[in-house]
């Protein structure tokens, strides 16, 4: 696979915004892979956690913003507990989700879920999902 890295994109406004929102220093990552090895959702992701960090480091933020991974991360903080550099990747994926949500683009549409299913869900699940997946 050919990857073209643009010097001008490494510190693009989008990258800066994600770093500011998450409060994480992605440049301290040296790609040990503990996040991906410990993440319970890696199998459901198109881009694993360590690659998310790498792609942000080299300014390829578009790939990360379009990935399915940011919507299957449940902020369980296992990656953060394992990271030897103390990077909280859950805060990174939160910032990536917010990039969409703050543009009023919802990820969750409750009307697509059968009414009977909604009725049996506990409040805690509904509030959690709405806060994480809607603007």
């Amino acid at each position: 696979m050919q990857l073209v890295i643009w010097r001008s994109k490494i510190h693009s406004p989008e990258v800066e915004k994600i770093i500011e929102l998450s409060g994480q220093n992605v440049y301290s990552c040296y790609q040990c892979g503990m996040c991906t090895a410990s993440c319970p959702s890696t199998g459901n992701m198109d881009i694993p956690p360590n690659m998310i960090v790498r792609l942000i480091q080299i300014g390829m933020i578009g790939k990360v913003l379009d990935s399915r991974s940011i919507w299957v991360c449940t902020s369980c903080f296992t990656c953060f507990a394992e990271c030897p550099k103390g990077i909280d990747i859950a805060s990174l994926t939160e910032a990536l989700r917010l990039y969409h949500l703050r543009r009023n683009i919802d990820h969750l549409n409750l009307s697509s879920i059968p009414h009977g299913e909604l009725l049996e869900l506990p409040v805690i699940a509904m509030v959690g999902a709405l806060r994480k997946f809607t603007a």
Partner: protein
Amino acid sequence: MVYAYYPGCTLKTHAKGFELSAMASLEKLGVKYRELEKWTCCGTVYSLASDDAMRQVAQVRILTRAESAGYRRMLTLCSMCYNTLKRANMLVRSDPERLETINMFMDDEPDYKGSVEVKHLLEVLRDEVTFDKIRSMVSKPLRGLRISAYYGCLLLRPKTVSIDSSINPHVMEDLLSSLGAEPIDSPEKAKCCGAYLTVNRKDLVAGFAYEILSAARRRGAELVVTSCPLCFFNLDRRQEEVSRMYEDYKPIPILYVTQLLALALGIRDVYMFNLHYVDPTSLLKSKGLL
């Protein structure tokens, strides 16, 4: 000192058996608490964005209501309530500027000064009541009951708010031992249950439930206990989907850890087992506990 008891939404509905069994047990153990007046939603999930003061208002409002009512300690049962309240409390205690912003926004409430400690029930049982005292008060030991404790995420992570080890906790096993039960260790005990993905990705949540529950079953567990209403729903209710996905799957009952505590303390009629998808009554009867 009296605790301000903060229930949170699900303790009053789906997890009523959790609340009733916890409250009856605390009364028996001599822990004083009063339900906080005018409590509101905790926000469920702590905002991880550095600029999101708006999403910390709910937690600080709850804390300031407890503070102005004279409480110094707040008791939570739900892992998500515990995590959001504890993290917001830590944030505003360490960031006076953020606290001032939130206080100014809540002009209908007294300013929060940061004097309230947020505690989870398991911490209170371990550190204040002590498991030795609980052991001495057990009237119906859970003898011969093999139980796998499931912690999930938010009691343990991030490390700054953990009630025990972030990766390999044992507080629930210690409690279960003091009740006379046989705790069964499982490598999946601190793994995520899928949380709110149960709304839009129940297929993924059923997959997590299968891995967590079959790991417990393989090690000989007869039931699984938890202390989070969302973990409970995902492990209990999603067994319907698990049974459809895996033909040879055998359902396993899920209980709140306080339901077992109340059983061992000889308390009656606080269980609400009718709210459980997998009925635990035949297992508990076979052990002479019901």
